[in-house]
């Protein structure tokens, strides 16, 4: 049953960039910041990670560079939308295009280079367990980090004072402001966190999935991450499930083809997107449900004087 285990490992690897980027975006959105620039932050993170790895040979530096680059992009977004109060949708779209263009420009010297494969952790003894050993105890560090981050975000948002404040700001920034919380500062924090995680998601592509740099290598994953946040109705654990479901559909369609199962490849390629649309339709079916799940101040600029 090596094949099943291998398929499950592929699914986790396919899903992890989405888990990382979407978790970051989820935090930003819960604080009321709609950043559509995930794709741009991811691709910059992918390049930063790869370039740093080539220059320093250090995976730690590469990962830090990716989070730093993603956060810098997010800081730019924060400056434009939080300080200058530009429209968040327009600024996010611009951020994506800016990131794609900038990474193509700066990445020119890196596109023919090759990096070593990303090491996998091995938990002594456990990794040799039959069936689940390789699956659970022989993955790369970033994959474990992504799971830990989902747990941490779920805990902080639902169970801590910090999470309560963030959610309050996302639901009603005037009320939060009135009781003395610095709305802009918290939103900056959430936006930067989102950017850092998007950068990390990009790093997962250029360090783990395919250790190389290619222009536009995110290939739309930033948009899928954005859709996943809605898909998950802004809940971290559901988001994890959604990302793994998405990864599963992607990988299973490849395997079913190699096994010779007769389903049209085009239909299979469409499936993940179809699932997203169906879930979007289901959760937006009635007004109440959307109201209850989406942060009420999502995408709205905050004027302290109001």
């Amino acid at each position, binding site marked *: 049953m090596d094949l099943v285990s291998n398929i499950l490992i592929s699914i986790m690897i396919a899903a992890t960039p989405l888990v990382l980027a979407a978790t970051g975006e989820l935090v930003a959105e819960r604080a009321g910041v709609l950043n559509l620039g995930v794709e741009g932050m991811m691709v910059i993170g992918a390049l930063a990670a790869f370039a740093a790895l080539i220059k320093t040979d250090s995976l730690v530096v590469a990962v830090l560079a990716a989070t730093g680059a993603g956060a810098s992009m997010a800081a730019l977004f924060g400056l434009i939308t939080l300080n200058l109060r530009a429209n968040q949708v327009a600024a996010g779209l611009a951020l994506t295009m800016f990131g794609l263009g900038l990474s193509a420009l700066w990445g020119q010297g890196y596109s023919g280079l*090759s990096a070593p494969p990303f090491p996998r952790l091995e938990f002594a003894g456990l990794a040799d367990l039959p069936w689940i050993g390789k699956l659970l105890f022989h993955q790369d560090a970033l994959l474990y980090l992504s799971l830990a981050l989902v747990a941490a975000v779920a805990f902080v948002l639902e169970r801590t004072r910090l999470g309560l404040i963030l959610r309050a700001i996302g639901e009603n920034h005037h009320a939060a402001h009135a009781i003395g919380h610095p709305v802009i500062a918290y939103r900056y924090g959430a936006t930067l966190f989102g950017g850092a995680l998007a950068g990390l998601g990009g790093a997962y592509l250029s360090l783990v999935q*395919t*250790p190389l740099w290619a222009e536009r*290598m995110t290939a739309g994953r930033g*948009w899928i991450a*954005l859709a996943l946040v809605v898909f998950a109705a802004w809940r971290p654990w559901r988001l994890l499930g959604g990302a793994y479901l998405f990864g599963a559909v992607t990988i299973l369609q490849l395997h079913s083809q*190699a096994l010779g199962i007769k389903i049209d490849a085009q239909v299979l390629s469409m499936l993940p997107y179809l699932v997203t649309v169906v879930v979007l339709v289901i959760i937006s079916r009635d007004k109440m449900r959307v109201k209850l799940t989406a942060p009420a101040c*999502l995408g709205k600029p905050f004027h302290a004087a109001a």
Partner: protein
Amino acid sequence: MQVAKRLSALLALLLAAVLTGAGVSAQTPSKPKISFVYVGPIGDHGWSYQHHKGLEAIKQEFGDKITTSYVENVPEGPDAERVIDQLAATGSSLIFTTSFGFMNPTIKVAARHPNVKFEHATGFKQAPNVATYNARFYEGRHVIGLIAGKMTKTNTIGYIGSFPIPEVVMGINAAYLAAKSQNPNVKFKVVWVSTWFDPGKEAAAAKALVDQGADILMQHTDSPAAMKYAEEKGVMAFGQASDMAPFGPKAQLTAIVDDWNPYYLRRVKALLDGSWQTGDVWDGIAQGTVVLAPWSAKIPADVVKLAEAARDNIAKGALHPFTGPIKRQDGSLWLKDGEKASDKDLLAMNFYVEGLEGALPK
């Protein structure tokens, strides 16, 4: 409400991407402008990269007699028409549209701009001002098929396909027939990824194929991701479009390299001396458009000999990769004993040959 907002935002993005996708450079009216339209990024190290090398060669050869411009990442479909039209309307004399999906847009735009000349790669529709050009990649596929048939230990070859168009189907059939001629037990597993360029998905497809027993990978997609994966896993692979040895120094057996430069230089020269005419050119190994990268040291001497003999015989015209008897997958006869496939048949190929498993997507 929020959801509706989000969806409209996504739509806005699509529009914005469409509007900014084409950065067209300013022209100097006195010199003929040569323009290129690419489907992928010029940094893909595959298909678009090789066409862009052609543009560089044109610049070097003709220097300040011409100006050049290019638009990369142009999606196949309605958007392509707008990009090509824009290039035609802003002073281009000769426009190369370098992907199969640009065929109908090119023909449409050409009808509106009778004074501009167009060249469409890999298509089959011509007009007085639209020439087509293609390369006989299937000749290269024949050679790598021979090598794969000889070298596979698991008798399983993994093939990553992009879209089931004749060009790609022809390649699968050519490689399979050649592999089968050397190894009657060989099996091909074909995975369609429905994209020309998505390194993550191509790598996932490569992994799926290796997980299912393939020890040699072939690809008809544009990124080096599968080669990179083969290198990591210690399996073998063939490079596509460009020499991918930097990504798989141990994994690459050889690569089918597209060298468009001779054709591009010829056509620009024809434009400049006024002899440009429409036409349909399909060059191959003989003309140097299809080139095989240096053999890997892993290939045993007798297999190298076999591959070189096939390559040289194809160049001489003594060997046609599609020579009968060949049956279709459903068992019906396609080519009689000794019959060679016509170019027309090849360019319309929409079936697997006998022995291939799985259904060809429609």
